[in-house]
Every structure is written in structure tokens, then in C-alpha cells.
């Protein structure tokens, strides 16, 4: 059988999500995990039929231009204030599904207060937290989630506990709050993990539809440019080092 006979519309089993604008070139570095997470969000929103009633809140960080890529309504928040903006939107538009898309600088550094209090109030929002253990956009400085011993632009000899403190597991903090209904930690470095992350996002959006409270989906991600590695080496490094500190799986799932 020739390739032309296989490549026919009736045989198509996987295509790019419609909500992800194919004509807009994503600015992310080659191999960046953000692209996969954008793709999964676009797929989940389309499959659940929520394209017309979803509002995203984009952060400050690498994902600041997320509103250019996924064709739903978006609001750009000040740095770290995405959960506060999302709180307002979800209270004013209770029928809409509101999600925030935040990096580790946005959620676990400048926006810690907003994130924890939005989760503690049990706001009916979905928080997508992309944890790549580094400040990617500003040039690879240490983030609160940077691992002990990890080299960054501001910790060239590795992060030291006596000087820089311990890595912050903010997702674990969210899990002990009564306002959260679903807290999970996933990854997108293999096809199986991509499928699991998609299922987790679907569940989080369903929770928002069911008005169950705050859902937090952490995605342990790579920043191959910041880590100074090739994309596949970054995935290997993440599996070897990041998962020891940030183990994958559900932290909380209220029935």
C-alpha cells in the first residue's frame, strides 16, 4: 500500500486541535513543554464543547502570549494575580468555566498569596500550574521550585539550602486546603503521560462545571533552554531528578 493511499481524510486518527490556531507560530523554544500543555487544553476544551463558555487567565512568564494561541476568551493578569482575576470572572460569570495558566514564578513566587487564598476560598476555577523549576522567560534564574543543587543563572554552583532555602511544593500546600477538590501532579514527557495529563485536565474542567471548588493540575515540565540541555536530555533529566522531589499522581480527589 502506497503512502498516498494511507493519507486520506477517512483514515485520519490524529489531527491538530481546532482551537489551536495553526497559522500563528508559537514563540516557545523547540521542545518546550508549554506547547504540549496548550495542545491538551485546546483538545479538552473542544471535546467538552466549552469553546464558547471558557475564559482563560494568562500569566506573566513564558506563557504570557497564551491568548494568541488558544481560541477562547482570555484575560491577561498582572504578574501572579491570575487567581484573583479568575475569582472575579467566575463570580461575575458563574456559568462560565474559568481557568488560570501559571508558571512556577507566577504561582509559587509572586502570586503565592493569591493562589493559596483563591484555593482556600474554594473558588470555582481550574489552576494549571506549569512547574519547570526555573524562571524561563527572564533567562534561567532560580525559582522557588528549583531543586537543591540545581545550577541556574543566579545559583551557578547549585542551589544551597542554607542560602536559598528548600524547594517549595506549593501543590502539596494546596492539597491540604479545604477549598480544593482535585489536586494532581502530571507530566508530558512521554505519550502515556500526555494521555494522563489530558484525563486530569478533563476531570478538572468537569469539576468546574459541577461547581465542586478549586482544581489544581500541576504539570512537571522542562525548560531545555534554561537548563542548557537538548529537549530529549531535558526530559531524561526531569524523569531522573524532578520526579524524586515532585512525584507524579493525584494528591487529592474529593468524590
Amino acid at each position, binding site marked *: 500500500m502506497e503512502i498516498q493511499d494511507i493519507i486520506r481524510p477517512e*483514515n485520519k486518527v490524529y489531527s491538530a486541535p481546532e482551537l489551536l490556531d495553526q497559522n500563528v507560530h508559537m514563540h516557545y523554544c523547540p521542545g518546550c513543554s508549554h506547547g504540549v500543555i496548550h495542545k491538551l487544553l485546546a483538545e479538552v476544551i473542544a471535546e467538552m464543547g466549552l469553546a464558547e463558555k471558557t475564559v482563560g487567565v494568562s500569566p506573566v512568564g513564558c506563557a504570557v502570549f497564551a491568548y494568541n494561541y488558544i481560541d477562547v476568551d482570555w484575560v491577561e493578569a498582572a504578574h501572579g494575580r491570575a487567581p484573583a482575576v479568575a475569582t472575579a470572572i467566575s463570580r461575575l460569570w458563574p456559568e462560565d468555566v474559568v481557568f488560570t495558566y501559571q508558571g512556577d514564578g507566577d504561582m509559587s513566587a509572586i502570586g503565592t498569596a493569591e493562589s493559596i487564598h483563591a484555593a482556600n476560598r474554594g473558588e470555582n476555577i481550574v489552576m494549571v500550574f506549569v512547574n519547570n523549576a526555573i524562571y524561563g522567560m527572564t533567562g534561567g534564574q532560580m525559582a522557588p521550585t528549583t531543586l537543591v543543587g540545581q545550577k541556574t543563572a543566579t545559583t551557578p554552583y547549585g542551589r544551597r539550602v542554607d542560602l536559598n532555602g528548600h524547594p517549595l511544593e506549593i501543590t502539596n500546600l494546596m492539597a491540604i486546603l479545604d477549598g480544593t477538590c482535585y489536586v494532581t501532579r502530571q507530566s508530558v514527557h512521554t505519550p502515556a503521560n500526555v*494521555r494522563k495529563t489530558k484525563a486530569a485536565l478533563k476531570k478538572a474542567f468537569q469539576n468546574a462545571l459541577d461547581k465542586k471548588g478549586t482544581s489544581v493540575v500541576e504539570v512537571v515540565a522542562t525548560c531545555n533552554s534554561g537548563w542548557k540541555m537538548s529537549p530529549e536530555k531535558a526530559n531524561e533529566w526531569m524523569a531522573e531528578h524532578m520526579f524524586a522531589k515532585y512525584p507524579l499522581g493525584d494528591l487529592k480527589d474529593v468524590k
Partner: protein
Amino acid sequence: MAKIKGAVTVNVERCKGCNLCVVACPTDTLSLQANEVNDRGYHYAYMSNPDACIGCCSCALVCPDACIEVYRVKVD
């Protein structure tokens, strides 16, 4: 026994040559172009061994730029 044959298309101009699809492919179907580049100068992915493709979608799932589409047929 029915055999599965697959094929992929790559949106060449969107591909950034990150190599993640090549690593994810279980049948070594894909490679990056050694000499050819797209308009942005990236060595884009292509099917170097198209007969091996089983249409499993692994490449498309891990592709960060959503530039891979997958086709699959059953051959009797």
C-alpha cells in the same frame, strides 16, 4: 491477521526540529532532515522509514507544536 499501516504528515513550516517525535517513535519511522531546513532554519521531521509506521500517534502526542497528523488503515 489484519495488519496496521500508518503514515504521518508534518506541517513543515511549524516544525521546530526539537527531535521529541523521533525519540518517542517506537518503530524508528521518523528522523530530522539532515540537510534540508524550513523557512525558519529548523531541520524539520520527516518519515525516513515510512514502511515501519504503525500509526500509533506517539509522535503526535508529544509534539509541542501540534504539527503532526496521523493516518492509519487496516490491511487484510
